[in-house]
């Protein structure tokens, strides 16, 4: 627990949250909300574009003309992968750097400056893209370039985000120095610190890629294709590591909020975040595994995060989070069999169902497919196919976005001091969104396996002089139909989230004790609310403390090995010699 040496709440600047007991430095509230609203606006725009894109690739609909499809693909990428995620992460850093450690925000004006910088950057880039001046995707590989204003906007946004990440580190440092945090940081804040450090490194990489890209777009320099790809993915892949660390931080937070779970082994969980930091600047060659210009050792060392250090970190969390949930639920009396704790979890609590969908979806689909794609030889079967798109919708949407939505159901009403609107809808939203995403991701992976390419207006290349017959088959039509239908359901789920957020922030009933979720909130400043005493994990026990989790992780490992074996079989099945 944080110590209470900071001044007692007084005057206008501090309040005590009636629900969680956290002391809240009030100037930070509006900053968190501004970033959260900017995130939701980006998500809304990106979602509308997503629907139109999926309905274009689905031959039965073929909604957009080619130019608009490419234009919207550029815009969708930057709105979702950059603006939605990073605005939310900055909101989370502002939250973690103040409320979770009882600290005041040092430099409120500074925080406003970088928030505004990010908003301006996002508007400039989005306007440039939507007006058709950046149709070459947000990767814009040279010699293709986007309009200079596209890069100007991205750079403004990135500088803002960089300042935000540095600000969080400064907050933690001053909290330490001033004795606001005397002992270790809460695990969630520790995880956010890992995310912030990765963010600083990644955004510096971003400058190294985007500044030359801007100069090239102005006609001042010419960039080498391979060099740019290497620089770009130092930023592009690192950005996914920020999302990973931030998502796992949110997992620990949601587990605490919805079940009062306590980490089974604080030290090991922290070590796992250190492993993420070790893998920080690696993984970028996942995108370059079948590129010319790179040696074998560089590819293998980089793609494996040096012997899968980052994967080991994720495998630690894969045990530690379900085990924490299991321990908490067993303490509530759900002790029958291996899985009663799982089956009788608080599924009607939006944060809990979001957590479970995110953890299971990320583990079984996103993580496993990522390792398959990152295996150098297997990548030959996957590079630039729609399978890649299925994979990153599993990581960034089914994993990160669902987790962030789950957290928003608590943080947004509590910070806005308004009741969560449409609770009944919120209960169903993660399941609705998750179902749509699973369908869409399954369709994308199947289509990619059948050879469909990513980022193409007409996946069957029906207008090409040399026809490619294998791209049209009943199975491919089925895959495209899954993508279209899945996207419709997912966008409905996304719209439900947006509706709930907008209704909460702007029209929710004002309250000093806002209604959130169905459980109220279980974990706050004073630790888990005492409906039950949740025991500490007994590390010396001879019996398994979490037999359900132990079973679950080995089921996961069997699935992982089976998928790897299947992919290896598929590569062998090519028959042709390749070297």
């Amino acid at each position, binding site marked *: 627990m944080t110590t209470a040496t900071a001044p007692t709440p007084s005057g206008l600047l501090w309040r005590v949250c009636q629900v969680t007991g956290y002391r809240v430095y009030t100037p930070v509230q509006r900053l968190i909300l501004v970033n959260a609203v900017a995130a939701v606006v980006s998500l809304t725009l990106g979602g509308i574009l997503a629907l139109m894109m999926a309905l274009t690739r689905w031959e039965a609909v073929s909604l957009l003309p080619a130019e608009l499809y490419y234009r919207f693909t550029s815009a969708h990428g930057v709105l979702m992968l950059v603006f939605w995620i990073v605005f939310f992460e900055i909101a989370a850093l502002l939250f973690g750097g103040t409320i979770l450690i009882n600290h005041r925000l040092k430099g409120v004006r500074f925080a406003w400056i970088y928030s505004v910088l990010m908003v301006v950057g996002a508007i400039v880039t989005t306007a440039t893209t939507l007006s058709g001046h950046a149709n070459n995707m947000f990767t814009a590989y040279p010699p293709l370039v986007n309009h200079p204003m596209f890069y100007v906007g991205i750079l403004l946004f990135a500088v803002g985000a960089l300042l935000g990440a540095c600000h969080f580190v400064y907050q933690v440092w001053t909290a330490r120095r001033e004795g606001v945090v005397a002992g270790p940081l*809460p695990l969630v804040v520790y995880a956010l610190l890992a995310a912030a450090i990765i963010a600083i490194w990644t955004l510096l990489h971003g400058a190294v890629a985007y500044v030359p890209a801007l100069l090239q777009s102005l006609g001042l320099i010419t960039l080498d294709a391979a060099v740019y790809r290497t620089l770009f993915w130092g930023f592009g892949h690192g950005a996914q590591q920020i999302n990973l660390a931030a998502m796992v931080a949110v997992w620990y937070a949601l587990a605490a909020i919805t079940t009062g779970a306590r980490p089974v082994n604080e030290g090991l969980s922290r070590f796992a975040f250190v492993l993420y930091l070790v893998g920080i600047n690696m993984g970028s060659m996942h995108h*370059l595994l079948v590129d010319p210009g790179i040696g074998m050792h560089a590819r293998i060392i980089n793609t494996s995060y040096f012997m899968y250090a980052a994967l080991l970190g994720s495998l630690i969390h894969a045990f530690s989070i379900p085990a924490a949930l299991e321990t908490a639920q067993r303490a509530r009396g759900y002790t029958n069999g291996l899985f009663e704790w799982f089956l009788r979890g608080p599924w009607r609590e939006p944060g809990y169902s979001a957590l479970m969908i995110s953890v299971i979806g990320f583990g079984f689909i996103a993580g496993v497919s990522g390792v398959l794609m990152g295996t150098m030889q297997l990548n030959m079967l996957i590079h630039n196919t729609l399978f890649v798109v299925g994979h990153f919708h599993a990581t960034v949407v089914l994993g990160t976005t669902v987790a962030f939505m789950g957290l928003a159901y608590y943080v947004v009403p509590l910070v806005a001091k308004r009741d969560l609107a449409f609770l009944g809808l919120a209960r169903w939203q993660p399941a609705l969104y998750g179902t749509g995403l699973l369908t869409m991701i399954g369709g994308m992976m199947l289509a990619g396996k059948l050879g469909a390419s990513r980022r193409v207006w007409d996946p069957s290349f029906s207008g090409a002089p040399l026809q490619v017959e294998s791209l049209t088959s009943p199975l491919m039509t089925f895959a495209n139909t899954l993508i279209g239908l899945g996207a419709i359901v997912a966008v409905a789920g996304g719209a439900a989230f947006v509706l709930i957020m907008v209704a909460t922030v702007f029209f929710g009933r004002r309250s000093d004790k806002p209604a959130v979720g169905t459980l109220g909130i279980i974990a706050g400043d004073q630790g888990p609310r005492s409906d039950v005493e949740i025991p500490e994990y007994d590390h010396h026990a001879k019996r398994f403390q979490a037999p359900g989790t132990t079973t679950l992780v080995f089921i996961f490992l069997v699935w992982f090995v089976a998928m790897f074996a299947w992919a290896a079989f598929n590569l062998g099945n090519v028959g042709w010699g390749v070297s």
Partner: protein
Amino acid sequence: MSALNAPSTRYVAPVGRDERIWLAFAVVWCLFLFVIMYVWQFFGEQRTPIESYRIEPSEFRALTQDYIASHRIGEVEGVPIVVPTDGGEAFLAARAFQFEPVLQLKVGESVRIYLSSYDFQHGLSIQPLNLNFQVLPGYVYVVNLTPTTTGEFGIICNEFCGLGHHVMSGRIIVTE
């Protein structure tokens, strides 16, 4: 205390028995995934092409055109069909928005393909094998293929290369 609260004092605890077992399996799996890439690269039938060279796009274009002129055996839809050189070498060029030439290979005979682009970045995607390689202007990627099945194999571009990206295709023909 939950993950939202600071742990009381020391947080370094011994790792429990179930976690230890899981960790052991996890470490072994991670190491396997790492080592298997080296094993595959030395002993596998399908290895990732590594060999590559820098070249000016204009020079690559000239070499490819010479090769097409001297090894042309026909034409399909306006695209020349060629056979590999006696030494088993061939050029395959990507340009907006066509792969050229169409390669006619013999089953069981290895061919050393020099792959590059005249203009933008492209993606070589051989269907229905679903073998995919990046094509960069300024670099020759040496892709060695040994066909084991006969027939016509489509090529599509799978790296966005401009507004004509979705009509960019090519072909490999494998005969007895």
